[in-house]
């Protein structure tokens, strides 16, 4: 499903962000990525959906050679992937509902299925009541859950979640984890980057530790 071979990544020639990473994440698996601040977790996720280019090595995602896809064709890769961003990336001018629906709209889904699926996703993160609020009117944790709903709404084959519980209290964090586990059981591959050691310990899935761009323990 996701394979990395000797991947190197440096940002504008400076200190390397990822050093010789080789990984295999099987289809339908659930993997944590942990590591200190600045270790390269977000960078790794950005490589997987083609947002950052890498210096050398090979990345295969769903059979596609990520390094070889042209910019205009990257959308084919990205439609298989849902991403929870560390900084949410919600659009302030759209309501909660519209923010989540947006992920379906850009793929040209029908209005009916958009309504249906969006409502479902909002209910699953417990924000259906706030569907007409704007992001600015939400607490930090609520915004994060909107981002999670948006990543799940088009039922992607792969979920890349970057610190999805950073602003959530332990109770809600566990609920979100359960949400991901359910999706995983229905066939979604989940890659979950987090600092939350307690969560990692508790969930008992394989985890990858990054340290200054190196894989410490696969």
């Amino acid at each position, binding site marked *: 499903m996701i394979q990395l071979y000797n991947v190197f990544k440096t940002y504008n020639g400076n200190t390397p962000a990822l050093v010789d990473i080789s990984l295999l994440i099987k289809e339908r698996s659930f993997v944590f990525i942990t590591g200190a601040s600045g270790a390269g977790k977000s960078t790794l996720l950005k490589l997987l959906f083609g947002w950052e280019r890498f210096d050398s090595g090979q990345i295969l995602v769903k059979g596609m050679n990520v390094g070889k896809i042209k910019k*205009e064709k990257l959308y084919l890769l*990205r439609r298989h992937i849902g*991403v929870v*961003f560390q900084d949410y*990336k919600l*659009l302030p001018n759209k309501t909660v509902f519209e923010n989540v629906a*947006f992920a379906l709209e*850009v793929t040209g889904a029908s209005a009916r299925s958009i309504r249906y699926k969006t409502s479902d996703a909002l209910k699953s993160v417990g924000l259906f009541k706030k569907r007409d609020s704007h992001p600015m009117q939400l607490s930090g944790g609520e915004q994060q859950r909107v981002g999670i709903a*948006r990543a799940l709404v088009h039922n992607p084959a792969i979920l890349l979640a970057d610190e999805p519980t950073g602003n959530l209290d332990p109770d809600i964090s566990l609920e979100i984890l359960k949400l991901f586990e359910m999706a995983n059981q229905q066939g979604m591959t989940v890659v979950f980057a987090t600092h939350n050691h307690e969560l990692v310990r508790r969930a008992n899935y394989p985890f990858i530790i990054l340290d200054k761009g190196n894989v410490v323990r696969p």
Partner: protein
Amino acid sequence: MFYSKHLNRAVDNLKSNPQTSLVSVSTFAAAFCILGLFMVLYVNLDSLLATWSRQVQIIVYLNDDLKKPQLKKLEALFAGNSEVSSVEYVSRQAAWEKFKNTFSAETEFLETLAFNPLPASYNLRFKPGPRRVENIRRFAEELRERPEVESLEYGEKWISRFEKFMVFLKVFLLAIGGLLGLGLIFIISNTIRLSALSRKNEIELMLMIGATHRYIKTPFLLEGVLQGAAGAVLALLAAKGVHAYMSFQFSDSIAKIARDADFLFIGPSGILILFGSSVAVGWLGSYISISKVLNMVNES
């Protein structure tokens, strides 16, 4: 279906930045209105030129004391030219009567003048046709060589001057149109760039969640086209307004200058050209800027 959604997004864009859109649409309107008025000027001068050149005639002033056979010879020459439509002979006496009639009201002393200083003349009129002025010019030069002819008038100077002026006006029109076009492309591209930059986060997000480039670009292209079209419509209305006002105010003087010519507006093809070029300018301006912004966001 595809386009109606994009049109909605384009209209949303326009609405979300009403002041900027207004500035760019009204700059558009002002520029195209100027252009339109120049076109009105051109169209009318052109039709005036046509009217006048239709009225061009050669007046052949004859030497005094020509004999009948000499006149016959000349008349045969006129008849031999298939372009000539009518020949009118004005004797010295007739010319003098006409002259006195014209000026008698103002100066009484002409009455008492002892002799007639005016020559006899032929007035030649010509058939309409495309190379009319050219033919007249050629025939006039031929006549000038004849010994019977004292001198000759056919308004050649002002006609050729006017023709040169029309060429100049055409070049000027194209030049100013080109310049304004470039300026407008710049302005539209700026407006769309701002519109796109104010949605930079949205564009970035769209890219991240799998929108195609075309999906992202289309509303901005439509936005540019809408601005261009709105500007052109406003410009045409304004130009038409000015035209109507001028027709009304100066109908007398216009009638005087060109009796059978109306004060014309730009024809349908001119309107189409104006409209088409404004839409093209809108499209081009937005295409340039949205491509740049998309590349910038997509960079990294």
